[in-house]
């Protein structure tokens, strides 16, 4: 299983050797910081009125939850760009042969790639998550809610990346992988909207399928194992599909 780390290490190195990774980190951090500051300003302006209310939303609900929501939107746009090249570019440049000829299993290749790109998003999440911590220095923060949102964010990014990785195994063209990943993820996002009207069984199913529905409850501090299981199943499914897809070339026809 040591192949996983070798492949993940190479992936991270190549990512950070390209300007793309740095630009993505910069742009994401800039946008989110701007939105974050706007939300802090909003909170400060309504704070006097909130102070008079019972059960008023605190800074975590107003500022941190909104930051995590914004991060999800940006992740939806950024992740397809970073996952698109994972397999398709290696296949195009014919470097995939190197991995296929080496004594590593397809599972090691897929997990290595997945871990590599996930480490990048771990860096991104660490940068995003450090912003609310600054509020903690000057006031109080609902740490439980913050932690649940953080976990939800990592699971969400994990799910996005797994889907992106799978779609990258399907095509030679990174752009095709990116657009189809974006389309799939957006569909899984908006599918919930149809479920909001009425209360039939179908609506409940659509809501359950929605990738954002589970994230929303975690942001709100509701830690339910059903949500965690949803994301884990999502990730495992797409990783297994990727492994099977790579194996298909090697297996007897």
């Amino acid at each position, binding site marked *: 299983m040591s192949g996983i780390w070798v492949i993940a290490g190479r992936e991270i190195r*190549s990512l950070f*050797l390209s300007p793309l990774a740095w630009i993505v980190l910069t742009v994401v951090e800039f946008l989110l910081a701007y939105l974050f500051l706007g939300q802090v300003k909003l909170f400060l302006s309504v704070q006097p009125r909130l102070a008079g209310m019972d059960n008023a939303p605190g800074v975590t609900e107003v500022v941190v939850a909104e930051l995590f929501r914004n991060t999800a939107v940006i992740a939806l746009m950024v992740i397809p760009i970073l996952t698109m090249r994972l397999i398709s570019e290696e296949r195009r440049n014919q470097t*995939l*042969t190197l991995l*296929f000829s*080496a*004594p*590593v299993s397809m599972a090691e290749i897929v997990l290595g790639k997945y871990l590599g790109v996930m480490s990048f998003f771990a860096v991104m999440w660490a940068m995003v998550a450090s912003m609310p911590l600054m509020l903690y220095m000057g006031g109080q923060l609902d740490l439980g809610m913050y932690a649940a949102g953080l976990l939800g964010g990592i699971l969400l990014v994990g799910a996005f990346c797994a889907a992106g990785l799978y779609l990258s195994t399907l095509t030679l063209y990174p752009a095709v992988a990116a657009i189809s990943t974006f389309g799939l993820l957006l569909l899984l996002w908006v599918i919930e909207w149809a479920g909001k009207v009425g209360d039939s069984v179908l609506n409940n199913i659509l809501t359950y399928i929605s990738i954002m529905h589970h994230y929303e409850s975690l942001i709100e501090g509701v830690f339910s194992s059903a949500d965690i299981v949803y994301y884990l199943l999502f990730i495992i499914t797409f990783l297994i599909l990727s492994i099977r897809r790579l194996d298909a070339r*090697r297996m007897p*026809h």
Partner: protein
Amino acid sequence: MTDTIASLPLVAAQHLSLAYDGTLAVHDVSFEVRRGDVLGFLGPNGAGKSTTMQMITGNLAPSAGQVFIDGVDILDDPKHAKARIGYLPEQPPLYRELTVDEYLRFCARLNHVHKERLNGALDYAKQRCGLTDCGKRLIGHLSKGYQQRVGIAQAIIHGPPVVILDEPTVGLDPIQIRDIRNLIRELGNDHSVILSTHILPEIQAICNRVQIINKGSLVLADTIEGLRQRMQTSTLTIALRRAPNSTALLEIPGVLNAEPLPAGRIRLHHTPDQNPAEALVERSVREQWGLYELVPERISLEDIFVNLTTSETDVVTGVAQVTP
């Protein structure tokens, strides 16, 4: 082929076939490579050379047939089989954004080279391929010839018993070609090498066995020695100032047939076991025919290749019918 451990071939391909959309890209190809062999794989473009190599290296699964590397089935136990192979595909699988050292270190670790042996393996591969001074350079900035060397270094870094090179000298200048050939010849001392090429003299220069594939089937498999014998024909071309009539020539022992050629030359066909050259010279001196030219005809490897890959009749016996 007098190998002490000849019982187990390092590579054994058995009845490999591959069907692509109903057409057979490779059809029933079987061969073996033993320790110390340098096997040249010849064939026109699209004959199935690269496809066969991809199947041997576990990159592509055959529709039928089996591949054993050092006795390990590559489909059943790919990890152990692949650890015994170093493979340079047609296009070297290089990460252009890495330096040579970074890349080779990655390849070594991918092939489970132990941490303590890593630097040694790196130095060995670089020294073997003449890359000692390029360790810090970006692969993307190297010339084609040097990229090819990095590709070969990648294939030998883990010291595999079998090295498979797909057209290793394509796109190199003559000096680089000479270097790479020397390298391959050296590799043959302690690895088994399979290499594919279009360049016929290359085969004669570095291989000890040849295999010609055409339209997905093997049409010839022989040693270089055997090939040399095929290249000798039983024909002499002579030129005489005062040529006698053909009956006089046919009297010489061994001569079967005399065929007049333009410019006063005559082609003599003789039995393979009796070369009439000596008798002919003696007789020519005695009877003052004025012999001034005597050339044993040879067919080149190119003739064999062209004949095998263009004629409709396949099989090895086709060679015997070659007429220069």
